[in-house]
C-alpha cells in the first residue's frame, strides 16, 4: 500500500481518562486506504526528547467524516506532548505503515476472538468494524488494570459481544484475559490480539494449545517505520524481521516465542 506523509488537522481531542486521549484527525483530501492493524508515525515537535516520530496504531477510520482516530496512552514525553494537541492544530503523520491482520477468506463461517489489553485495544476497534462489515461477527475480550482503563466500550458493544477482565475486579471478571470463562464456554476459529507482550504471549500459548490460528501485533522500539534502519527487529523463522515493515502483525507460528 502506498505510504504518504501528510499534514493532518486535529478535528477532536478527547481525554478518555487521566492517561488516555482519543485524537481524531482529518485532511482536505480523502485519506489514504488503511487496513486494520496498520500504524502511523506521528511527528511531535517542540522538545529535545521527542526527536523521533512516535509509532501509534490506527484505532479507526471514519470514511464518512474522512477522519482517522488515534488512541494514545500517555507514556512518556512524546505521547504527553501529543496529548496536548487542540482542534485545528496541524500534525505531520506518515501512514499507513506495516501490514494489517489477515482477514478471513470466508467471513460468514469464521468465529473470531479479538483480544485487547490496555491501550492494545486500539486496533481492535477498526478490526472489529471491518470484520462486522464483512459479515463476520467479532467477539471482543478486553482486559485492563481497572475499569477506568477499559476504553471505548460503547464502540465495541455496537460491533459484537464484549467480555472484560480487570486485574482489580472493578469490571468484568477479575484476573487476566486468558482466565476469562468465555474461553471455556465458547469455541473460536481465529484469535487476533494486541496488548502488553506478556499478555500476548499468554494468549498465543492458549491459541497454540487449542490449535487456533493466532495473530499478534508487536510494538518493538522503532525509528524509521519503513524497514530502512532495522532497529525494531523480532526473531522469526526467517531470522530478524522488521516489526515496522514485515509486521507489526505476525502469525505466532512465525515467531520464536518460547510458549
Amino acid at each position, binding site marked *: 500500500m502506498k505510504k504518504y506523509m501528510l499534514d493532518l488537522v486535529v478535528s477532536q481531542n478527547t481525554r478518555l481518562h487521566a492517561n488516555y486521549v482519543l485524537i481524531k484527525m482529518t485532511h482536505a483530501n480523502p485519506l489514504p486506504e488503511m487496513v486494520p492493524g496498520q500504524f502511523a508515525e506521528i*511527528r511531535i515537535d517542540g522538545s529535545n526528547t521527542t526527536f*523521533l516520530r512516535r509509532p501509534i496504531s490506527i484505532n479507526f477510520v471514519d470514511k464518512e467524516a474522512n477522519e482517522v482516530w488515534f488512541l494514545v496512552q500517555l507514556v512518556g514525553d512524546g505521547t504527553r506532548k501529543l496529548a496536548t494537541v487542540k482542534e485545528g492544530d496541524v500534525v505531520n503523520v506518515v501512514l499507513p505503515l506495516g501490514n494489517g491482520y489477515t482477514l478471513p477468506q470466508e467471513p460468514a463461517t469464521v468465529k473470531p476472538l479479538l483480544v485487547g489489553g490496555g491501550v492494545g485495544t486500539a486496533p481492535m476497534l477498526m478490526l472489529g468494524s471491518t470484520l462486522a462489515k464483512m459479515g463476520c461477527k467479532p467477539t471482543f475480550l478486553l482486559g485492563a488494570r481497572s475499569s477506568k482503563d477499559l476504553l471505548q466500550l460503547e464502540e465495541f458493544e455496537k460491533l459484537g459481544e464484549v467480555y472484560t477482565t480487570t486485574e482489580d475486579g472493578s469490571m468484568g471478571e477479575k484476573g487476566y484475559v486468558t482466565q476469562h470463562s468465555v474461553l471455556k464456554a465458547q469455541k473460536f476459529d481465529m484469535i487476533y490480539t494486541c496488548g502488553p507482550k506478556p499478555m500476548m504471549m499468554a494468549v498465543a500459548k492458549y491459541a497454540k494449545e487449542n490449535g487456533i490460528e493466532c495473530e499478534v501485533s508487536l510494538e518493538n522500539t522503532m*525509528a*524509521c517505520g519503513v524497514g*530502512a*534502519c532495522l*532497529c525494531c*527487529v523480532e526473531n522469526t523463522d526467517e531470522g*530478524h524481521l522488521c516489526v515496522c*515493515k514485515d509486521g507489526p502483525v505476525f502469525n505466532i507460528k512465525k515467531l520464536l516465542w518460547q510458549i
Partner: protein
Amino acid sequence: MADLSVNIGNLKLSNPVMTASGTFGYGKEFEDFVDLEKIGGIIVKGTTLHRREGNPYPRMAETPMGMLNAVGLQNKGVDYFIDKIYPQIKDIRTNMIVNVSGSAIEDYVQTAERINALEAIPAIELNISCPNVKQGGMAFGVTAKGASEVVKAVREVYKKTLIVKLSPNVTDITEIARAVEASGADSVSLINTLLGMAIDAEKRRPVLSTVTGGMSGAAVKPIALRMVWQVSKAVNIPVIGLGGIMNWKDAVEFLLAGASAIQIGTANFIDPTITVKVADGINDYLDRHGFTSVKDIIGGLIV
C-alpha cells in the same frame, strides 16, 4: 537555478545530497515519498561477504536530539544483494553506491571485487569502523595502519570510485584520513556514528542489547562539522560530510566547512522527503547569495 553538480573522483552527482548508509534501505523503501532520481547519490545498506543477522533487539535508543543504534550490519550478504536487490535498483537513474563492510581484509576484498563487476554501481563506500575480529575487537578504522591496509587491498581489486567512511572514535581523524588518501582512496566520508551509551535507570540496565551503540542525529552535528573542517584541510581528495544534518542550512554549513557533498542519515527517519528539500534549500541559498555553482561555496568558510 544554480548549478548543483559536484564530482567525487570520477563520480558525477547532479546535486551534493546523498543518503547515509543504513538510513535509507535500498532506496525502494522511500520511493513512495520522494523521487529517488532527484537525490545526488544513494548509499545503500552495509553489505558484507556473508549474511549477518546483526545484534539482538533492542537496537535503538532515543537520546536528546539524537539516537543510538546497535544494528550490527544486518544484511543478507553480497550474493543476495547481487541476485535479488541489484536487479531492482540498477535502473534508478542516480548514483547507487554500495557500502561495503567486513571483519577481515579478505572479506572486504572479495565483496568489493564482486561489486566492481556490477555495471550500475559506480562507487563503493568502504566502512572501516567495524570491529575487526582478527585483531581482537579492534577496528580497522581506528589506526592509520589498519585503515591503510584495508584500503590498499581493496584498491587493488576495485577500479571505480572508492569512498572510505571514517570513524570519529579516534584521537586524530586527520591522521587516518591522510593514511587513507595515501592508500588510494578517491574520497573520504565522515563521520560515522559516535560511540555512546544509554541506561534505563528504573531497570538499572543498559537500553541496548550491546550496552554501547552508535550515536547519530542533530546532537552530533558540531562534532561532525569540526572533523569535516579539519579533514578537508588535511587531504586533497574530496570530503563527503555527514553527521546530524537535519535541513538545508546544516548542509550548507558542511559545504562551507569543506565538504564537496553531504549525506543525510537520521533525518530520513523524521522526514522521508528531507533529501529533496535539502537539495532545493541549497539551490535557494545559492540563488539568494548570487552564487552560480555550489562549487563556489565548498570550503568557502571565512575565518
